[in-house]
């Protein structure tokens, strides 16, 4: 068996920190190879080296058997390496097609281009509309654009960073069909993920990194999911379990919420009803772009609803803005970290002020007391294990997992009576995700209600005792897990779309 890519003894330091310490990795021809590791394990550094955006301090690489030292991503792409990033690089104001054209080296406009996009879209089950403006697309659809953009380059090695975080079970298995097909056609795949079940399903080999060092290269099928996870984080994982599901009286209800979208590509919400009890965790599953963003906007209060639609704790809250809702002890964690839940160019201290119940005394009569603010920041940083030198660091300097822990912590230290959270662990490593899930469970155990909107079905299944599915702006009744189970959920998720 030949190796498509051989990476030997790569070391890369930033000052005293060794991001990669003597790491080796061999990817066989036409194989799907997993790269596993927590945030900060050195996956990104290694991938950046392979993709030519970083130069290693020492070590060497071979591509197709000959020496390979890419000095730029351009050179990597010329060799046939393509990458789907976790953070998308798309221009929001341009259409899907324009974005794809811009991402390709040396390709101009031509009339058959739309057809070519549609061909790949059909062939690999990546549903997109080339004329749609990217700004109006959900995260899931944006990722499909990125994938197609890579496929158009006909790569020999496709690097995928956390590709399935936003896909439905059906989409994931479609993607796996795509990936296997690509591998059979001679394109190797480097698959970065923390979803160990998927890695065991699709990858023939796995390389595990921890703290910049190589832990092991192994065949993932020979290990259990738990063993892999523990190799990855270097300690035992806590099992998720609700100690006591003790639900009280109704605290939050949505009554026949209908709301046409302001956006021509948006989703109209139709007749959504839902009730949450104290101490319950309710999940809304569904494929991205089925009204999650629109629903979240209304629940947070970024857009007002009619009266007599949203009730919290006896108050009609439809016309209250998010700040006013927080005063009643409703808190929110949106899906998008940078630019929505946090301001990238502001410090963590400043970001604390996005969510500020008056009872915190962070401000009095709108005058800010920075000492109190930074006390709260410190509490979030220590209680939720946010890895950062200080609260003065800019939000954008934190890794995705750390920023997510900060955002979760910022809301949870307020002990909300109701927490509404979208995609709580999207793009977050296993260890952090485990922490976040545990803190959500702890919150519910104390009697708070939690509404989770997530496209990660595993997450919903493991946390929620009541599950609904959002599809084309309509919310299903609660799914009876004992009677109907997963099959029913999958069916509901694709429900309207199949026609």
């Amino acid at each position, binding site marked *: 068996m030949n190796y498509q890519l051989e990476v030997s003894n790569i070391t890369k330091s930033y000052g005293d920190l060794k991001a990669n310490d003597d790491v080796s990795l061999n990817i066989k021809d036409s194989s799907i190879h997993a790269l596993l590791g927590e945030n900060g394990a050195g996956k990104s550094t290694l991938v950046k080296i392979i993709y030519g955006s970083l130069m290693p301090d020492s070590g060497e690489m071979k591509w197709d058997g000959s020496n390979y030292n890419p000095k730029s991503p351009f050179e990597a792409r010329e060799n046939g390496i393509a990458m789907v990033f976790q953070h998308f690089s798309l221009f929001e104001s341009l259409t899907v097609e324009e974005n794809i054209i811009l991402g390709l080296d040396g390709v101009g406009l031509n009339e058959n281009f739309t057809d070519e996009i549609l061909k790949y879209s059909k062939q690999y089950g990546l549903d997109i509309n080339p004329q749609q403006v990217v700004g109006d697309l959900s995260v899931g659809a944006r990722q499909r654009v990125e994938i197609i953009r890579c496929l158009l380059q006909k790569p020999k090695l496709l690097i995928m960073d956390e590709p399935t975080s936003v896909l439905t079970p059906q989409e994931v298995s479609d993607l796996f069909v795509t990936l296997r097909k690509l591998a059979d056609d001679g394109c190797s795949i480097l698959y970065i993920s923390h979803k160990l079940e998927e890695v065991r399903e699709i990858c023939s080999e796995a390389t595990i990194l921890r703290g910049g060092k190589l832990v092991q290269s192994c065949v993932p099928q020979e290990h259990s999911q738990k063993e892999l996870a523990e190799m990855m984080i270097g300690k035992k994982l806590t099992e998720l379990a609700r100690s006591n599901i003790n639900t009280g009286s109704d605290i939050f209800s949505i009554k026949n919420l209908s709301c046409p979208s302001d956006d021509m590509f948006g989703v109209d919400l139709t007749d959504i009803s839902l009730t949450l009890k104290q101490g319950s965790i309710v999940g809304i599953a569904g494929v991205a772009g089925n009204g999650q963003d629109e629903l979240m906007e209304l629940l947070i209060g*970024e857009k007002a609803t009619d009266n007599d639609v949203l009730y919290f704790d006896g108050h009609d809250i439809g016309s209250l803005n*998010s700040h006013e809702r927080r005063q009643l002890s409703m808190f929110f964690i*949106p899906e998008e970290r940078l*630019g929505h839940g946090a301001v*990238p160019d502001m410090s963590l201290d*400043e970001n604390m002020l996005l969510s*500020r119940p008056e009872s915190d005394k962070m*401000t009095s009569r*709108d005058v*800010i007391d920075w000492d109190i603010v930074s006390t709260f920041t410190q509490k979030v940083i220590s209680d939720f294990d946010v890895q950062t030198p200080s609260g003065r660091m800019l939000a954008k300097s934190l890794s995705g997992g750390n920023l997510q822990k900060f955002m979760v912590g910022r809301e949870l230290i307020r002990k909300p009576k109701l927490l509404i959270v979208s995609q709580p662990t999207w793009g977050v490593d296993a260890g952090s995700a485990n922490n976040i899930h545990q803190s959500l469970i702890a919150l519910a155990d104390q009697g708070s209600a939690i509404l989770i909107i997530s496209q990660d079905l595993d997450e919903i299944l493991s946390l929620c005792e009541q599950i609904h599915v959002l599809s084309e702006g309509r919310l299903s009744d609660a799914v009876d897990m004992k009677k109907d189970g997963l099959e029913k959920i999958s069916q509901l998720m694709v429900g309207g779309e199949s026609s």
Partner: protein
Amino acid sequence: MIKLIPRVENSKAMILLSPLLALTLTAVSALIIFIFILDDIKVSSVFFTLFVLPLTDSYLFPELLVKAAPLMIIGLGLSIGFRAGIWNIGAEGQYVIGGIAGGAVGLYFYNVEGFWLLPLMALASIIGGMLYASIAAFLRIRYQVNEILVTLMLTYVAVLFLSAMLQGPLRNPAGFNFPESRIFHDSAMLPIIWEGTRLHIGFILAIILSLVAWFGIKKHMFGMQIKITGSAPRAAKFAGFNDNKTVLYSLLISGGLAGLAGFFEASGPAGQLTPGLPQFYGFTAIIVAFLARLHPIGIVFSSLLIALSYVGGEEVQIEYNLPSSITQIFQGMLLFYFLACDILIKYKVVLNKTKD
């Protein structure tokens, strides 16, 4: 080869050093230009007149402060909107309307003595500027009309309105039909704070206003609101800020302050309303705001710097017969180098040792 590499953290040293570097580069460039255009005049003496004399001369220095005051006040207002991404380009128009409003009140009470007159005129000028800016706010909020175009075009309307007023209701009845108002009586003139000069109380108010603005930006939620809105509009909604209010308040503040500056000019150095009221302060204040990186205390210094270029520029015009565009060249270079040098805060320059 020279390469720019992003820094991990913003360089604190460069935040302070880059303005000095920009100043040096401006001076060097000015020197080169002078060497080319000056034939028989000594470069050093032009340099001295341009940069040093305004700081040492007992007539020119207070003039510098007189010019700095309106720039400072308008710059402060603009910087607040600019932080929020609200681009009020027409402060000049709001300045003119403020001047007319304040002046009209003074003229209405002509020869009436009273300590209340100046505050009343100031209030009228602020309201005038606010109302004028609120046209842009209304159009932007109600019909999504771009505020840059509206504020800019309304500037020309304001200037024409001034000349209509000066040929009509506000014309001096005993002024031989010149398009000028009466000269304000003493109660309508700003108190002079430096005997024998034109330096009036407006300068002190400008300093106080910048301290207030500094407090507002650092310690008040409104400062956070405009910063968040400018930096991440969705996060502003998440925080519960109403973006229409941000637009309205930023335009009202910048309009009101520009109006106040117009009144200071009319009741200060001018002493009457004339067609010469618009001095391009409203546009120059944009440079002032950006030179200061929109920081209120920085605006104190940048307005003094720009005022220096005005006063020094006028002086070399008078003494050496140099063209008036010297001032603009100087201001343009200054802004250019400031913005260019700011890149050193986020990036470091690396000289690449080429291996192959």
